[in-house]
Structures are given as C-alpha cells and as structure tokens.
C-alpha cells in the first residue's frame, strides 16, 4: 500500500481500538457461557429427535444461522423496544425501555447466534463418540448426567474444539456489529477516531492488528486445551 501513512495517528488509534477489547470480550464471554451448555443440550435433543424440542430447535437454528446478524440486530433493536414500550404502557410499568443499555441486546443476539452455531458443532462431535462409551459408563453406575460430564463430553470436546474455536473467533469479530447498537467496541472506536481526518486506512490497520492479537491469543489457548484433552488419542498417521 502506497501513500503516506499517518504513523502518529496509527499508534494513537491502536490504543483507542484496544480500549474496545474489554467490551468485545465481555460479549464473547457472556455469549459463550450461555451458548456452550445450551448448544450441547439442544444438540442432544436433535440427535434424539425429541418431538417438540427438536422441531423448535431446528426452526430456531435455520433462522438464526440463516439470517445475517446485522439484520437480527436491526429487527430486535428496532422492534423489541416498540413492543415493550406498548406493553409497559399498558401495564403501567414504570421503566423506560430506551434506557436499557444496548449491551443487553448484544448479549441476547450473540448468545442466540452462537447457540445455533454450537448446536451443529456439537451434533457432529457427539456422533463421533461411540455408543459403547455411554453404555460402559452407565454400566459402572454413572448417571446419564455423570456419564456425559466425565466420559462423553471430554471426548466430544476433542472433536468439537477446532470448530468451537472458529465459532469463538467469529464471535469476537462479529461483536464489531455492535456498532449498530452504538456499542463502543473495537471497530466503532477506531472508526470514530478516523472520521475527523478520514484516516480510514490507518484505522483499518489498527482494527486488523487488534483483532489479530486477541483472536490469535484465543486460538492459542484453544490449541493448548485441545492438546491436553486429546492426549489419549491415536490419530491416523
């Protein structure tokens, strides 16, 4: 890339962008905390074809996975408050809908999305663990819950981890869509800084660097964990 980069701006804005990391990570952590168990459970309902739940989860998955997050944000951000406002007025709830911190919307949207992704991740991973493992666990007197926690999930995780990692990294990047809700995360901060001088090239370099750093860190942690979990495994050489 040619032209004069404004290095001073580049460096200053790097830290501006960096200051958006906590909010991005907060959303990521909250969404993951909700989505991991929920995704696993719903994956089971799909595998077991539990009547109502599995239909519900498949409709849910197809919608949430299928439509752009930005559209979901838009719809939720624009219609939920209107609906709530009407309800609040009707029942005289003394709360202002529009005072709700937009981060709550972010939590909801991103949790719903990540859950849908993880359902599929887990569905494929669970199917790689042989049935005998569950049977053996139950035969030594573990409850189903214990069997899953101690035997099935650890083996499932090994297969799922690379894809959970992808999902996490995607989630961190997707939090940038929070700008649509005025969430001051990484991208928005950098763009705001870029506007007065139109330093967009520098801003995007900073955005790039910040995401690269946090995402590779996250990826590194995942790799470590994967190694630890999979030490029992012999893979096709």
């Amino acid at each position: 890339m040619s032209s004069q980069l404004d290095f001073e701006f580049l460096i200053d804005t790097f830290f501006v962008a960096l200051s958006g990391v906590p909010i991005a990570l907060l959303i990521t952590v909250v969404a993951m905390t909700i989505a991991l168990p929920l995704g696993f459970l719903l994956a089971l309902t799909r595998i077991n074809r539990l009547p109502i739940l599995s239909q519900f989860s498949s409709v849910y998955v197809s919608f949430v996975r299928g439509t752009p997050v930005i559209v979901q944000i838009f719809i939720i951000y624009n219609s939920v408050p209107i609906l709530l406002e009407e309800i609040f007025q009707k029942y005289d709830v003394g709360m202002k809908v529009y005072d709700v911190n937009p981060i709550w919307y972010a939590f909801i949207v991103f949790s719903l999305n990540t859950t849908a992704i993880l359902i599929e991740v887990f569905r494929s991973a669970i199917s790689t663990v042989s049935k005998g493992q569950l049977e053996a666990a139950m035969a030594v007197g573990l409850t189903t819950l214990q069997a899953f926690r101690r035997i099935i999930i650890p083996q499932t995780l090994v297969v799922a981890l690379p894809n959970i990692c992808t999902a996490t990294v995607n989630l961190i990047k997707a939090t940038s869509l929070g700008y649509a809700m005025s969430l001051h995360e990484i991208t928005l901060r950098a763009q705001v800084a870029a506007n007065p001088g139109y330093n967009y090239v520098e801003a995007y370099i900073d955005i790039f660097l910040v995401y690269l750093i946090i995402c590779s860190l996250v990826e590194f942690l995942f790799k470590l964990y994967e190694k630890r979990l999979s030490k029992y495994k012999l893979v096709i050489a």
Partner: protein
Amino acid sequence: ADEASSDSGVRKIKVAYDQASKPISWLDENGNATGYDVEVMKLVDELLPDYEFEYVGTTNEDLLIGVTQGKYHVGVKNAFWTEERTKKFIYPEEFLGLSSTGLVLKKENEHIKTLEQFASENMTLAPIAANNAQYTVIDEYNKANPDNPVKLQAGDAFSVDVIQWVNEGRVDGGVSIEGPFEKQVLAEDGPYHNLVDEVVYNEFAVIKTWPLFNKEEQKFADAYDEAIKKLKEDKKLNELMKQFYGRDLFEVLEKVER
C-alpha cells in the same frame, strides 16, 4: 494510476460516490448513478474534454480508502472540510455543494433552534454513523463547548431511522440534513408524510461540501475548479439544488461559516 490515459489523450477518471445517500448521491433503481453530487460532476465532465468520468458506486469507507490509495481519482460523499482531512486529500478551491444540517424534533420541541439549546435542555440525540459528516459537526460543537455538550453517540446509518426514533420518543432529537427530511416528510408522497404534523426540522447550519481528490490529482483538481466556477456563474448548480433538495441553498451562502 496516472498512466491510465488512453491514446486519444482523453484521461479516464474514476469518480467514486456513496451509492446509498439519497438525494446527495445514490444508485437508482435502473442502476444509474445520480444525486446532486453526481449530477454536478456530470456537468463538470461535460466542461472538461480532456477527461472522461466513470462513476463507481460504493460505500463511505471504501470511497475514502479508495481515493486515498488512488484506486479512485476523486470521490463525492457530501464531505465537509476539516483541517486534518487536508493531509489525506486534496480539497479544491471551489466547493461542490451546500448542505443544510438541522435537528429533527417533536412538534412540541419546536422552539429548540440551536445545538446550545438542545444541549442545555439535556436532550438525547439519535446515534450518528461514525463516518458521517454530521458526526463531525456535533463533535466539533462539543469540543468548542465543553461545558455544554450534546450527548453524542456513534452508531449505524441503517439501524437508525431518525424520524421514527424521534417520533417514537426513543430519542428527543436527531441530526439530519434537509434533503431527506423534505423528501420523507414534507413531500406529499413521502413515506413519512403521515408524520408531517408530529415532527419538525430546525436548521442550525448550512455547510459547504467538497469533492475529495487523491493527493496526486492536483492538476485534475485545478481543472475541476475551472469548470465548477463556470457552472456556478451559469447558475447551473442552483437548479440542481432545487431539483434534489427542493430548495436553493445558495440563497443563504453569505451566512455559511465553513
């Protein structure tokens, strides 16, 4: 990119424009570039036989990066002038257009005419896209009035429907430029004409807008200056302004501060 000239000596110029900024510039249903900024550039093109313009529709960010990088030679996006921006782009001598900026308010708040008033009544403002010129205007006001700032929030152009938000009471006011308000609310066939008695537009500033030239396009920028001067003398721009904004802003030119 300078070598892009063809054998005939006519140089191809890529004009980038914001394709979703009606009525300033947009890509219409038939896939043609139009809007005030674009139409002005078309007139400029006619006056410059050595240049041939090609219009590239794109987004704000890409326009800015593309012009910086020389992929596009010039860009129009209702851009305001700031000192810092002159480091990145060539601003020509002559401005391209004028933009009326104002507050969209509920009818009951009609009395608020300035940002000072708005700020002192402690009202909330709809988020403004960070790459939007209006953001800069408010931001500059805030820097100038640190003891009485407007509550400024960056957001997204598409997720914020200013008129709706104000009408719903989700915010007390929003910044808008006159053209869209005119077309949405005041026009008989406007999508929000039903709100014509609910919301008002109070102008607080008229601002010059500029085309942005790539740093190496000084010669082209000079040629532009020549052409646009002529267009202004011929009152061509006044007509376009009426056509796209429904009002000739040149009437208030002497009051324009920047």
